[in-house]
């Protein structure tokens, strides 16, 4: 099975953002994973949106990488016309967890980023409203989704 459409997207991204893209690969059919530096996220996303019609952010997941002392932030973008899902991935250090928000670009990333902010404590620069979403109003137990937050035994 060959992945021509996927390879084409990767090729264009790599050509356009040479040096910014750390890793780009086809995972399986209709799944692309691109890893980039965090300062390039908005540019790559913008290019993906305008060039390949990646219009919807379907999910924003943060991952706590314990060994690397980093957070990985994964944006999943869906392109209705290309029928393709791209995982746009970046890493931010745990100590200064700041990332550039994609909400000005994709309104659909708004609540997902709020959630990541609330549960992991990642700051998103340029996000309009990082208010409380899921946890109780008077929650002060830290960021529950970090690995160092221990659940009851």
């Amino acid at each position, binding site marked *: 099975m060959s992945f021509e459409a996927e390879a084409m997207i990767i090729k264009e991204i790599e050509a356009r953002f040479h040096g910014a893209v750390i890793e780009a690969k086809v995972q399986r059919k209709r799944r692309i994973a691109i890893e980039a530096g965090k300062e390039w996220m908005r540019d790559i996303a913008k290019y993906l949106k305008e060039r390949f019609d990646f219009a919807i952010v379907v999910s924003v997941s943060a991952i706590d990488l314990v060994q690397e002392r980093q957070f990985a932030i994964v944006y999943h973008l869906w392109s209705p016309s290309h029928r393709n899902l791209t995982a746009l991935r970046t890493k931010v250090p745990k100590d200064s967890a700041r990332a550039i928000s994609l909400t000005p670009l994709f309104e659909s990333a708004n609540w997902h980023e709020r959630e990541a902010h609330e549960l992991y404590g990642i700051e998103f620069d340029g996000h309009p409203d990082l208010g409380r979403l899921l946890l109780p109003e008077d*929650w002060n*137990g830290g960021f529950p989704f970090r690995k160092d937050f221990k*659940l009851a035994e």
Partner: protein
Amino acid sequence: MRRNANRRRAYTVSHSIFQVRDLLRCFRHSSCSYIDFYGCVLKLCNSIHRHRICFCSDHRFSVSLLLEVFSRRNGLTSRLTCLPLVGKMFDWGRASSLWPVHIATGCCSPEEMALVSPRYDVERFGVLPLPALRQCDLLIVLGLVTHKMAKRVKLIYEQMPDPKYVMAVGACAISGGLFWDSYNVIKGIDRILPVDVYVPGCPARPEAFIQGIRLLQEKIKRGPSK
């Protein structure tokens, strides 16, 4: 089902509004009687009244209280209200007409919907869901209660008029269930509310619901425990 809902158990939730509950706990219909014609009506009402003022009401009275006041003023030593038959009648009325308040707290809510639907039709037993909590007397806690919801459940319970009953439905409401190690789920609703009936299941089946309602009715019909 627990015969006596007065369960002294330290709860770990520390929200300011929950503190009042401790003071009110002994005034439950089943543990103590302020509405059930067994004397000491006025005293208990007054003490509840002091704590309730912050929520919703600045005064409370009930027909039984009026009867009590009337009979004391006229030197009747409240004989009328002590008649066992009158008490029995009220117990029957309460048991036969349980109006549950509409609050969905967790995943058992579709099963509650099935409960009022044609196949299980709980209106046969006089259970009629009503929109406004001021008119309701049965709080069905449907499944898990998170910390955020717990404050509301608490408030809802305080705002319901006495006598009121609580039914904990589902494993989550009883003990935390599947989410026993979650950081946001209260491990058992009886930590914040006095529960009358426990209905197990995850989610509880409508048959179990009906059984729970029947048990509650029996409990009410037996009258207050002394």
